[in-house]
């Protein structure tokens, strides 16, 4: 999507929360190089959208695969370890990045 940088774009220019396939190798702290199959972009999204999108994305990847969730909502970030427990996933790491967090979850069997 082309960003023109106008004020209007702030409201309209980008999709809030989407889950694209990526297959990228990421250096996850405490785990090392890990293949991430999917990244969920939840920047700007209000709860419960990040949680519900994660649920959907995890339903579409295979057991043992790793997904990344990119968030800038502190309240949602706080809840992800508990969410992972409920979903039977492993919460691998939450990484603080510029203006966002990246949460890595491995789907359980």
């Amino acid at each position, binding site marked *: 999507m082309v960003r023109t940088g106008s004020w209007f774009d702030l409201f309209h220019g980008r999709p*809030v929360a989407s889950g694209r396939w990526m297959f990228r190798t990421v250096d996850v702290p405490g785990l090392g190089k890990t293949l991430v199959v999917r990244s*969920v972009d939840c920047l700007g999204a209000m709860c419960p959208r990040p*949680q519900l999108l994660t649920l959907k994305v995890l339903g579409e990847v295979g057991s043992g695969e790793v997904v990344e969730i990119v968030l800038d909502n*502190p309240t949602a970030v*706080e809840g992800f370890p508990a*969410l992972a427990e409920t979903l039977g996933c492993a919460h691998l790491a939450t990484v*603080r990045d510029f203006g966002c967090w990246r949460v890595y979850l491995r789907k359980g069997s």
Partner: protein
Amino acid sequence: MNGVATAGTASGGSWLSRKGNLQALGVFLFVVAGSVWALALDSRFVYMLVYVWFGLAYGMLLQYGRFCMASAVRDLFAVKVPRMAVGMMIAVALYAVVAAIVTLSGFSTFHPNAMGWHIIVGAAIFGFGIVFTGGCASGSLYKAGEGNMNSMLVILAISFSQAIVVSASGWWDALVPQSWVTAAAAQDMPAELSVTKGWFDIFTAGYIWGLKGSTTAEIFGMAESAAGIVWLNTFLTAILPVVIILVALYAFYYRKGYLRRSGKAAPTLGDELAGMWAMFTASKNTALAGIGLGILAGLHMYVTGALREHYGIFNFGELLVAMGYTNGLSIQDTVFDPGYWYITTQEAQWGGWIMQKLGIDSMDSIFFGLDNGLPNPLLNAPGFMSIGIILGASVMALSRREFKWKAPTWESAFFAIVGGTLMGIGARLAMGCNIGAFFATVTNGDPSGWVFLFGMTLGAFIGVKVFTWWMDWSAARKGGELGL
């Protein structure tokens, strides 16, 4: 937060060398300077500053614990996660214990809410709204302090919808039965309030005033005895339900996963207790914030109660009159002054005050004209508590590098306005939000708060269904793309 790694951010240097810390300090000093200025004007403004500083502390703790009470009920249905419900129950238990001490010492400022069907209906509308706004009334305040513009829109919507709801008449009046109009007319009220005009006035005078509101100790005629306060109000009305809810949350939401993770096929009682402890401490930030908020909320009542005693007043309005500020008081010379943590009424006053400045006067309503007044926001004591929450949250968010301006999308702005409006309507029908009508009530022995929680849970359940349906529908519309 536990186990958060940092990537690509600078570390080292002194605390003040970080921009966020400096900005946090700036906000903090702004509040200090404002407080000093107010005290220099008149030392009696200390009464208002109690609200400011407790608000600031609430905001800091809410942000620290990411204490989202909307998610307490929503996440049980949306993702089956009990984290926040547990945090909220911890806060209720602590508040109840401190409230008992405050009541025993004679400084309680608490008044029970009228018990009736309106609580369930209002709370359900409120609970439905919070799913779409991403936060309750307090949550929206602290998220606004994190730079979330959606939450700012929610606050605007809550403020104006309440102001409109409590003062609207005309076709709205058809919403209430004639029997309420008759009952309202029978009340001995000044003509200037026109209690038979305006649906909310009729609802208040014709229905709410006919209901009883009492603490459990009052129901059993033991309000004056220590045993009644401790056993009936604190233990029976707050602690016991909290324990039952925590056990239910463990059994339904946490136990299975915990036993699987810990490999316990035949759990003993000790294992179950360890599991409950793991549930409490799953998010230390949230648990700590729950403890802090519970204790502070109780202390707040104590400090305000002690100040009322000191000045020999029942309401801040009397102090305002003594200081020479008589504008915006109710016909009883009162203003809204709960003396404890409360959110929605002062926001309604902001909306009502702005509408009054635009030429729409609502002082003939019971809500503003008889009870709460429409003071200038600069003299609105509980209003400053809400501002304190925003500023406290921004102090915490800035110092933790979590402050970020977040602009709404068209969709989230729509949800914020519609959801916030529903929250405003629901809060007025139920006579408060999850703070004023639940948190502050059950902890002071008023069982009506549990009715509110039940209604809010019901509304959140329906809200989650509708929200999920909306997400699926909008994804399908976009040809399988997730979300919007």
